[in-house]
């Protein structure tokens, strides 16, 4: 080995290129190798598998795969926004578009693939897109705003992801597939038609066996697609997602051996025809095959890194398992192993359930003893178990169908993780075995999923194995007798529940005091708001008072809800949803005067959007004068108690639900809790107030009230459970007092009552014992804490506008009276809304 460090140049910073760099660092390469990489995109490697979530709940930052500071810390030279345009194999040099020249000792091509655009006349018209990068998504999103109809060409895995994205953008969405069924590579005709039915139920129109002949534009705008069967489809935009092609132009340019239909030929060490050059991921061709999934790409990275470092036990690449499990448009689809029963003598068993919308097929060996593959549509919960059975060649039960219909009496019990051999591959994306996961848990004393995932990489690919990994972790911890750690954050080595106890027992009144006694460091955005909430629910001091102001999330700090452009929305309390015409008029006047976008919320209130920080006190001065008070919509606090009109007006109502709702809302207003709290009161069993979907809900009966708790709407709806029946109002209030304080004291941070309840050992019986029978002997204390809250309630806004020191904070600039000059609005349906990035750009050029 020469003395000087060798140069390893990795062309491409996608998922696989980045994985290779991570592996090189992990395997200690940095003392012998200079690692250099080129990233053509404006950002470092991100999770392309989860790309469609960019339109839902993830930002570009959430999608990143690169640990903060990873490249700097490990001395990796990265050329951003630059791509290699030439390889000189003779002089072992690469040259980039920006003119950078780098010499290499070894070169790895991880250039990935590009979306295939079928050669259809008009395929380059304005309004046509591909779906590969965040920039592609930004372009699609911008164009979708002026479109009503979108078509995805290609009904494969990525095409359906893309259809989901268009649907989420509010477009009428169509999928056009050339083959006679959706996902032709993964699933069979029966599975395909089940999937089609499910997807059409969701409002996406599926057109199979369609050969597009022309894309027609009219007046410079996309108009329609014409098909070989003489039909046509009108559309405003088209996204091509008809498969991928290897990015192999560099390899072609420098004369590496290529496949007939493209792809850089590699051997089992991932070396190309030039032994100094490797190719991995979707640009590489192994035995005539391109592997368009991330798991085989990661395997290639593993093999190449071993080989580069001359690891004695180097693995070799021998093709890859193309098993996949996905959720497409909310429909589970999985396919694994020999899914089309190509093994001679193999048999198929299939169960289709048109009512449940599920289709499950197993392919078993000729003797019926081994599982060879399968297809699952509509319900893929058995995927993990089935994959393990197949990969570990475990014997099948006598009646393999029992694996597909586990609810049947006498069915085989579900496989426990303990029965798997240590060699069982749990995460196929990152090739992690059960043995490796168990070793990590035991040797490094890992006790939580995030760390386990980080250390082993298990579950960080497609995520399909996460439930199995979780089971493994729990089983191992149980065996080791370890209690699962639940620390709030790095500053407090206590769970929220423990901290709450310490705070109350020690009569601690400020964050600094709590930190000095029980924590370390300066705190962070996790512990500060959590402690702020605990202090508020315990001592009910104003959240803007000096020692507390720095703990509050911006919503609490400005007593309003921050919006995407940095302005706020204002929601005054409207107890029980009852409001006088006079007050309604004031709301309208205020909205008009301050030019606020106005919307009725789902909780029977009025929300006024677009208020600047400097306007908030002026708005609230008007509202307080008119008799309104803070609605606490900004806090993790009681929001509203929704009600129906009840027996006062309704011919069916049996009790006065509105009066009770107002009373309950006024009792618990301002109560801060681990998460927001919602409630409702219905005047009869028709349940117009939807009380069974609330944290606590009350339904009138002929004899009194029924109390439901721990229900939830939102992301994971959950039906509330019935805690007490036919109780009078006094008992009802007593039970709610106890329930709420018990929850506030014991729940984790940001844990809704439903999740808290699901984790409560002993479940509903236990909850009834604590709340109704007072089995812990704390009922009196819980009630006293609530009474203290009720007695010390103040309207946070009224106190604020009466206090000059607090008012001082409601300015955009500390040293100038100007408002935020960056705000920009456009009109829509007669009201203002924030301008989009594209609109801002246009407005700026006009000005």
């Amino acid at each position, binding site marked *: 080995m020469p003395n000087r460090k060798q140069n390893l140049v990795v062309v491409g910073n996608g998922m696989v290129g980045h994985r290779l760099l991570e592996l090189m660092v992990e395997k200690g390469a940095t003392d012998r190798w200079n690692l250099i990489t080129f990233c053509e995109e404006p950002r470092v490697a991100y999770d392309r598998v989860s790309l469609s979530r960019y339109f839902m709940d993830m930002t570009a930052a959430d999608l990143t795969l690169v640990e903060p500071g990873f490249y700097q810390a490990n001395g990796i030279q990265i050329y951003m926004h630059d791509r290699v345009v030439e390889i000189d194999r003779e002089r072992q040099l690469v040259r980039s578009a920006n003119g950078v020249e780098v010499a290499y000792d070894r070169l790895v091509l991880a250039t990935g693939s590009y979306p295939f655009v079928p050669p259809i006349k008009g395929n380059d018209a304005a309004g046509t897109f591909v779906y590969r990068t965040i920039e592609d998504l930004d372009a699609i999103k911008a164009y979708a705003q002026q479109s009503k109809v979108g078509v995805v060409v290609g009904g494969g895995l990525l095409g359906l992801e893309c259809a989901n994205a268009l649907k989420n953008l509010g477009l009428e969405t169509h999928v056009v597939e050339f083959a006679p069924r959706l996902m032709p590579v993964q699933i069979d005709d029966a599975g395909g038609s089940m999937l089609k039915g499910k997807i059409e139920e969701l409002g996406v129109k599926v057109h199979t066996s369609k050969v597009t002949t022309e894309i027609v534009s009219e007046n410079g705008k996309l108009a329609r697609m014409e098909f070989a069967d003489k039909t046509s489809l009108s559309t405003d935009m088209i996204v091509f997602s008809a498969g991928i092609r290897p990015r192999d132009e560099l390899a072609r340019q420098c004369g590496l051996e290529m496949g007939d239909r493209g792809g850089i030929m590699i051997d089992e060490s991932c070396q190309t025809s030039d032994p100094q050059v490797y190719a991995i991921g979707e640009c590489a061709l192994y035995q005539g095959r391109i592997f368009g999934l991330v798991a085989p790409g990661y395997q290639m990275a593993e093999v190449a890194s071993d080989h580069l470092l001359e690891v004695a036990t180097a693995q070799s690449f021998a093709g890859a398992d193309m098993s996949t499990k996905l959720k497409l448009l909310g429909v589970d689809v999985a396919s694994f192993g020999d899914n089309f029963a190509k093994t001679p003598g193999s048999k198929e068993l299939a169960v289709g359930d048109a009512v449940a919308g599920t289709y499950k097929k197993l392919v078993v060996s000729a003797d019926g003893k081994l599982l060879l593959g399968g297809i699952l549509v509509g319900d893929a919960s058995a995927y993990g178990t089935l994959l393990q059975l197949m990969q570990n060649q475990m014997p099948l039960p006598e009646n393999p169908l029992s694996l597909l219909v586990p609810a049947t009496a006498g069915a085989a019990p579900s496989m426990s993780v303990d029965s798997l051999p240590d060699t069982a591959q749990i995460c196929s994306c990152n090739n992690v075995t059960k043995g490796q996961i168990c070793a990590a848990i035991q040797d490094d004393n890992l006790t939580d999923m995030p760390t386990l995932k980080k250390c082993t990489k298990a579950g960080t690919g497609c995520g399909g194995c996460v439930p199995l990994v979780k089971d493994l972790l729990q089983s191992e911890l149980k065996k080791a007798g370890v209690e699962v750690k639940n620390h709030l954050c790095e500053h407090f080595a206590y769970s929220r529940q423990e901290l709450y106890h310490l705070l109350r027992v020690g009569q601690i009144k400020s964050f600094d005091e709590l930190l000095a006694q029980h924590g370390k460091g300066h705190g962070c955005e996790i512990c500060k708001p959590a402690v702020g909430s605990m202090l508020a629910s315990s001592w009910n001091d104003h959240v803007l008072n000096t020692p507390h102001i720095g703990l509050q999330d911006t919503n609490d700090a400005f007593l309003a809800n921050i919006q995407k452009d*940095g302005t706020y929305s204002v929601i005054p309390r409207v107890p029980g949803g009852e409001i006088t015409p006079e007050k309604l008029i004031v709301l309208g006047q205020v909205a008009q005067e301050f030019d606020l976008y106005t919307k009725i919320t789902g909780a029977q209130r009025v929300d006024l959007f677009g208020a600047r920080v400097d306007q908030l006190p002026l708005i609230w001065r008007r509202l307080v004068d008119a008799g309104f008070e803070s609605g606490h919509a900004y806090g993790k606090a009681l929001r509203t108690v929704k009600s129906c009109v009840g027996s006062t007006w309704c011919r069916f109502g049996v009790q006065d639900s509105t009066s009770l709702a107002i009373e309950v809302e006024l009792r618990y207003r301002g109560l801060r809790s681990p998460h927001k709290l919602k409630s409702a009161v219905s005047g009869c069993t028709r349940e117009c107030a939807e009380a069974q979907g609330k944290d606590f809900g009350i339904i009138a009966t002929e004899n009194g009230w029924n109390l439901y708790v721990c229900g939830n709407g939102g992301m994971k709806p959950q039906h509330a459970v019935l805690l007490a029946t036919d109780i009078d109002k006094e008992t009802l209030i007593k039970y709610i007092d106890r329930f709420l304080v018990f929850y506030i004291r014991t729940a984790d941070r940001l844990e809704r009552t439903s999740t808290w309840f699901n984790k409560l050992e002993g479940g509903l019986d236990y909850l009834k014992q604590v709340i109704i029978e007072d089995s812990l002997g704390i009922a009196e204390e819980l009630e006293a804490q609530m009474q203290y809250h009720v007695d010390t309630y103040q309207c946070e806004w009224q106190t604020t506008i009466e206090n000059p020191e607090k008012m001082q904070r409601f300015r955009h600039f500390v040293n100038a009276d*100007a408002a935020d000059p960056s705000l920009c609005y456009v009109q829509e349906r007669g009201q203002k809304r924030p301008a989009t990035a594209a609109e801002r750009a246009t407005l700026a050029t006009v000005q």
Partner: protein
Amino acid sequence: MAQSLSTQAQSPETEAKQWHSICPVTMIAPNTGVNALVDTEQVAIFRVGETDEVYAVSNFDPFSQAFVMSRGIVGDRQGVLKVAAPIYKQNFNLKTGECLDDATVKLTAYPARVVDGQVQISA
């Protein structure tokens, strides 16, 4: 703006810049931020504890594309002082402006100090 304040050269690139007086340090509640207009720039200034320790970074949050950084929560990660963006909660090193969650993103950091009870920013 205090034009006449002597500018001690801290590093070559600050040589051409000058110190601007912003406000009394007592106007910034301990462990919170304020937003200041410095020439035409929006600058978020944070005060650590009840001290004269102040830091300044650009008020523009690159993730939400809004001018809101001054409204973030001040804290630390493994001892590194930081502020969490108020909208999507990415963390930024208070001293350098570097994003701790995305190595490709960085806020401009401005030299900041307290002189005679006045917060000053060099820009």
